[in-house]
C-alpha cells in the first residue's frame, strides 16, 4: 500500500515508535510477562514460590467454574456487541440524517451514562429490576402484562440477560462517539450522490456507510470484546456473580482467586487464560469480518 519513496527508513520508524513502546513495555507488557511467569508457580504471597510447571494450566482446563464463567462472558459479549454497536450505529445514522430534531441535545445526553460510576448505574438498575417498587415491573403492571413480571435478577437463567441490558444502555454513548467520528470522515458527496441514486435509509447504511467505516467497525468490535471479557464493576455491584454462581464472569473469578483466596499463582494463570481466550475471540471476529467483506 505504501509507496516506497514516501516511507522513511526503518531505523527512523523504530526511533519514532520508541518512546511510546518503552512506556508501554514498562507499565503494561513487563508486568504481563511477570504474570505469565507467576502462572507456572504455586504462590500465595509468601517468600517461597513453588514451581509446578503447567500444573496451574492443567487445573484451569478442568476448572468448571472458569469455563461456566467463560460461557457467561460469551453470552454477554454476543448481547453487547449486537446491542452496543448495533444501537450506536443506528443512532449515529439517525443523528446524521435530516429527519431527527435536536441532534446536539441527543448527542450530548447519550454520553451521560458513560461518565457515571458503576456504583450509580448498578444501584439504579437494581432499583429498576426490584420486585416491589421496580420501575420495570410497575410498567408491566401498567400496560397489563402482569404475566411478564419476572424476578429479573433472582432467576439464574435470566440474570445474564438482565445484566447485559444496563451494560448495553450505558455504553451506547461510548461507541457512538467512535462511530460518529468515523462517519464524519466519509466524504459527504458520496452520501449525497448515493441518495440521488435512490439509496435511502437502511440501504444507505448497509451498502454505503458500513463498508466505508469497516476498519473502525472492526476496532469497535475489538474494543467491545476486550471490554466485555474484562467486565467486572457493574456485575460485581449488581449481583457479585450470583445467585449462586449463575452470573459469574471470568474477571470476577480471576479477582476472587487472586484477591480473596490469595492464590496468586493460579490467579495469574486464570488471567493469562483470559488473555488467550480474548485474543482468540478477536481473531475469530476479524476473520469473520474479513470473510464477509470478500463476499461483497
Amino acid at each position: 500500500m505504501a509507496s516506497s519513496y514516501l516511507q522513511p527508513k526503518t531505523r527512523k520508524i523504530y526511533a519514532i515508535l520508541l518512546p511510546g513502546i518503552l512506556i508501554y513495555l514498562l507499565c503494561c507488557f513487563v508486568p504481563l510477562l511477570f504474570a505469565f511467569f507467576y502462572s507456572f508457580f504455586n504462590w500465595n504471597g509468601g517468600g517461597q514460590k513453588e514451581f509446578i510447571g503447567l500444573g496451574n494450566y492443567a487445573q484451569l482446563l478442568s476448572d468448571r467454574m472458569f469455563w461456566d464463567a467463560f460461557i457467561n462472558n460469551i453470552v454477554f459479549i454476543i448481547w453487547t456487541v449486537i446491542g452496543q454497536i448495533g444501537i450506536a450505529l443506528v443512532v449515529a445514522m439517525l443523528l446524521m440524517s435530516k429527519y431527527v430534531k435536536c441532534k446536539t441535545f441527543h448527542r450530548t445526553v447519550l454520553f451521560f451514562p458513560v461518565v457515571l460510576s458503576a456504583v450509580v448505574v448498578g444501584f439504579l438498575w437494581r432499583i429498576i429490576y426490584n420486585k416491589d417498587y421496580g420501575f420495570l415491573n410497575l410498567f408491566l403492571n401498567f400496560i397489563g402484562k402482569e404475566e411478564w413480571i419476572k424476578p429479573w435478577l433472582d432467576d439464574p437463567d435470566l440474570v445474564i440477560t438482565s445484566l447485559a441490558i444496563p451494560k448495553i444502555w450505558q455504553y451506547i454513548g461510548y461507541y457512538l462517539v467512535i462511530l460518529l467520528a468515523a462517519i464524519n470522515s466519509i466524504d459527504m458527496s458520496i452520501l449525497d450522490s448515493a441518495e440521488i441514486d435512490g439509496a435511502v435509509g437502511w440501504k444507505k447504511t448497509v451498502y454505503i456507510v458500513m463498508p466505508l467505516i469497516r476498519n473502525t467497525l472492526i476496532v469497535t468490535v475489538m474494543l467491545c470484546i476486550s471490554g466485555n471479557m474484562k467486565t467486572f464493576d457493574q456485575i460485581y455491584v449488581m449481583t457479585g456473580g450470583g445467585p449462586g454462581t449463575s452470573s459469574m464472569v471470568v474477571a470476577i473469578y480471576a479477582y476472587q482467586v487472586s484477591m480473596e483466596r490469595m492464590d496468586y499463582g493460579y490467579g495469574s494463570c486464570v488471567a493469562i487464560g483470559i488473555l488467550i481466550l480474548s485474543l482468540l475471540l478477536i481473531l475469530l471476529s476479524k476473520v469473520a469480518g474479513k470473510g464477509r467483506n470478500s463476499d461483497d
Partner: protein
Amino acid sequence: MINEKLVKGTRICGRTIINIALWLLSITCIFPIVWMIYSSLKTQKEFAIDIISLPQKPAFSNYVQAITEGNLGTYFMNSVYYTVISVLIAVILSFVIGYILSRFKFRGRTFIYYFFLAGMLIPIYALLIPIFLEFKAFGLLNKRITLILPYIAFALPVGVFLVESYVKAIPWEMEEAACIDGCRFGQTMSRIILPMCQPVLSTTAILSFLNTWNEFPLALVLIRSNRLKTMPLGVTNFVGTYTVNYPLMFAALSISALPVIIVYLLFYSKVMNGMVSGAVKG
C-alpha cells in the same frame, strides 16, 4: 396521487416514531444523573427510607462535608494534573504510532500491533503485584510521576487502534501530493494528516480522559501519600466497613462526573467538525 400521499404519510409517521424513540432513549440517559444529583442532596435518613423520593429540603451541606471529609479538593487537583498530562501525551503518541502502523510496512509491524493488543486483554487485578514490584525496583512508587506512566500506557492501545483504522480510510493521494510538493515525512504527518485526524484524536482524548479519570486499582496500590491521591480514592472514603453513606458518596461522584462531561462537551464539537479542515475530495 393517493399512493404518493400514503408514502408521504408513512414517512412522516416513521419520522415521528424515530424522534420519539430517540427522545425516550435520551430521557433514560438523563434520569440517572438527575437522580444521582438530587440523591446527593438528601439526608442519610431520607435515603435510607426511600431511595427514589426527592429530598424534602436540599442538604447542600453534603457537598461541604464530602469535600472536607473526603479531602476532595486536593484529590481533584491531583486527578486533573495526572489526567491532563497523560491524556496529552497519550494522544500524541497514539497518533504517531497509529499513523505509522497504518501507513508503512516494516519488520515487526504485526508484532507491535499484537503487542498493544495483548496489554488490553488482561484483567488489571493480575497486574497489580507485578507493577508494584517493578515500580519498587525502579524507585517509582509514590511520586508525582508514578501514575502518569501507566496511565499513558493504558490509554495507548485504544488510541493506537482508533487512529490506525481512521488513517487507513484517508486516501493515500493526500500524502503523495504533499510529497511532490516537497514535504518530508515529519511535515506530511503533522501538516497534512494531523489536521485531518482531528475527529479521531478528539474521540481518543474523550475516551482516554474518561478511563484515566476513573482509574482506581493502580492509584490504590501505587500511591500512599494523601497529597498524591486521586478522586476515585476520595469517593471510597464514604464506604464504611458495613454501611455506605450514599448521599455523601453521590455528592463526591457528582463532583467527579463533572470534568468528564465538560471534556466531552469541549472535544465533541471537534468530533463533529469532521473533514472540514482537511477537505478531502475524491
